[in-house]
C-alpha cells in the first residue's frame, strides 16, 4: 500500500505515482495489493480509427467508372452515331447492384426482410436496364420476373421448413404477398399470358395460402411483436 502526502489518500496498485495528482507516492506497508478491479491495458489496445479507405476507394472507383462510361456513351451517340443505345445505364445499374449487395445485403445489420426486398429491387432494376437496351421488350416480364419470383418464394418456403425459429416468418409472408400482388397485376395487364406467369401466380398463391393455413398463430404473434403500438 502506498500513500500520497499531497492528496492524503492511500493508493493501491503497483505504480509509483498518485493517480490523482501524479506526484510520487511513498510505500507505507507491505499489504498486498489486490488487483481490483481493472485489467492492464496492453499495447495492442491502442486507439484505432475506423478504416474508411476501402469505402472511399470504392466510392471513387464507382464514380469514375460510371462517369467515364456515361461520357463515352454520350460522345459516341452524339458525335459519331456509333452506338444508338444507352448501354452505360447497364454499367450504372450494375454499380448500384454491387453497392446494394456488399453494403446492404452482406455488411449491414438490416433485417432479413429489408435485405431480401433490396436485393429483389436491385436485381429487377439491373435487369430492367438490360431490357431497356435490348431489342426484345418482353423477356423481363415474361421470363425473368416470374423466374425470380418463383425461386424467391420457393427458397423462402424451404427456409421456413428448415429453421425452427419462426421470427422471420412475417417477413417471408410480406415478401410473398408483394410478389403475389405484382404477379396478379402483371397477369391482369399482360396481353400474352405466358406459361411462366401462370405457374408463378399459382405457386405464390398456394404458398401464401399454406402460410396462413399452417402458420397463422406464428404470423399473428410476429405481427403483434413487429407492429405493436
Amino acid at each position, binding site marked *: 500500500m502506498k500513500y500520497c502526502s499531497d492528496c*492524503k489518500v492511500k493508493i*493501491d496498485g503497483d*505504480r509509483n505515482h498518485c493517480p490523482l495528482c501524479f506526484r510520487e507516492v511513498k510505500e507505507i506497508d507491505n499489504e498486498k495489493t489486490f488487483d*481490483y*478491479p481493472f*485489467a492492464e491495458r496492453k499495447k495492442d489496445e491502442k*486507439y484505432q480509427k475506423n478504416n474508411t479507405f476501402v469505402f472511399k476507394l470504392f466510392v471513387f472507383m464507382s464514380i469514375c467508372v460510371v462517369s467515364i462510361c456515361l461520357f463515352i456513351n454520350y460522345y459516341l451517340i452524339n458525335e459519331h452515331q456509333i452506338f444508338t443505345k444507352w448501354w452505360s445505364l447497364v454499367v450504372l445499374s450494375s454499380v448500384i447492384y454491387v453497392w446494394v449487395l456488399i453494403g446492404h445485403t452482406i455488411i449491414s445489420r438490416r*433485417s432479413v426482410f429489408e435485405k431480401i426486398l433490396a436485393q429483389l429491387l436491385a436485381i429487377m432494376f439491373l435487369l430492367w436496364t438490360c431490357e431497356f437496351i435490348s431489342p426484345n421488350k418482353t423477356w423481363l416480364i415474361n421470363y425473368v420476373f416470374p423466374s425470380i419470383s418463383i425461386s424467391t418464394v420457393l427458397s423462402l418456403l424451404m427456409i421456413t421448413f428448415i429453421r425452427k425459429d419462426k421470427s422471420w416468418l412475417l417477413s417471408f409472408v410480406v415478401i410473398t404477398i408483394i410478389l403475389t400482388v405484382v404477379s396478379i397485376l402483371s397477369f391482369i395487364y399482360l396481353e400474352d399470358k405466358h406459361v411462366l406467369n401462370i405457374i408463378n401466380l399459382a405457386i405464390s398463391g398456394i404458398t401464401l395460402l399454406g402460410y396462413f393455413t399452417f402458420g397463422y398463430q406464428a404470423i399473428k404473434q410476429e405481427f403483434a411483436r413487429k407492429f405493436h403500438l
Partner: protein
Amino acid sequence: MQKKNWYPLDNAAKIYPPNTTEASPFVFSFTARLASEVDPEVLQKAVNLSLEVMPTFKTRLKRGIFWYYLERNNKVATVKPQPAHYLKQITPESNNGYMFEVFYRKNTVTINLHHSLTDGTGGTNFFLEILFEYFKLMGYDVESEGVIRPSAAPHAYEESEDTFRVFDKKLKNNSEKEYSAYKFKGTPFSHDGYGIVCGVCKVDQLKALAKQYGATVTEYLAALYMYVIYETCLQGKPEKNKRVQILVPINLRKRFSSNTVRNFSLFVRLKHDFHNEISFEECIELCKKQLAEGSTTEKIEQLIHSNVKLEKNPFMKIIPLFLKDIAMRLVYRRVGENLQSGDLSNIGLIKTPESFSKYLKDIAFVIGPTASAQQNITVIGYNGKIYISSARGYVETRIERELFKRLAKNGVELTIYSNYWESEV
C-alpha cells in the same frame, strides 16, 4: 396459454437505442471482487441459470415497425476474459445479441449492462443473482435469505412490466425555462477507453461527515461534485447562459412498491449558474432544496405523465421507427445532452445475504461517460464500505482529485484505485 416471448421497451429505455453510439454507449457496470479466483466454466453455468431465473435479461434488442422491443434470446450469453476497456458500446455482435456482457479476471467478475435493458437497481439484482448461482455451483454455503430471488420462484409479470405506464396519472407538468449545461473540457485520451478512479471509504465516516451538514450521503456528494466543478473548472468564471447541471437518479421502486427489474428511475436535475460567489454550505443547502423539490411524489408523477403521454400519443405511435429514431436523436440532443454536465448516481447500500460476506469482498459500480456527460460519479455501498467511482473521457483528473482531497481533508480515510488510463503503456 403461450408464454410471452417479447417485451416492448419500457418508457425510459426508448430513448437509448437510437442514441447509442461508440461515443455514447449508455452502459454501466458492476464489478465484484471475490475471495478466490473465478472459475470461468462455473461462471458460464451461473449466467445460464440466472437467465432462466430472470428471463427479462434473456433477451435481445430488435427493431419493430413502430417501436424497438426485447425478444427472447435462446443463444448463450458467453462469459469472456475482461478486457482493459470494457465499458464499450454493446452491439448485437458483442454477446450473441444480449444487451449485457459478463467478464472475469483473476478474482473479479464484471457485468456490463446497456440502459435499454435495466437501470442500476435492476442491474444489481441480476448481478447478485449471477453471484448467488456462482457461489452455489462452487459448493459455497450460501442462502438466498429472502434477499436473492429463489430459483424455484415462478417468474412474476411485475418483474418485467413497464412500471411507468402502470403509475401514469394525468397531471400537468409545469415546465421551467431550461438553460444549456456547462460541459467538461479536457484533453482526449490518445486511445479508446475511459479513465476510472475508485475511492473506498468507511460508510460511517462518510455518513458522519454528511450529517455535519444535515445532509444525506447523496446530497453531500452531489453538492461536493457541483462545488468542485465550480472551483476547479469554472474557477470563478462561469459561462454566460450556462449552468452546472448534475443529474441525480431517483429509484422509484420503494415509493411505488414495484419489483420491476427494468428501468424505473427518474432524474432530478441539480443546477446552478454560479454567477455569484457561493460557499460550500450554501451549495449543500441548494442541492438539498432542489433534491427535495424534485423528488416529491407529485413532481415525479408529473414527470412520469409527461414522458408516458408522449409515448401514448396516437400520432407518435403511428410514426415508423426510422422516423422516430431521427426525432428521438433530435429530442435527446435538445433535452438530454444539452442539459447535462454529468451524473451522480448512488445505488445506496446493497442488500446481500449475510452468507455472501465470506465470498464477496468488494463491489464497484461505474457508469460509462457519454458524449454529453464526459464525467460521471457513481456510489455504491457494501459491507460497511462505500465505493465512490469516477469515470471520465479525458486525461485530466482535476474533478476526482479535488473531490477525494476534500473528503480526505474532512477526515474520511480513502484508499484509491485507478486504471491509470492516462499513462502510456
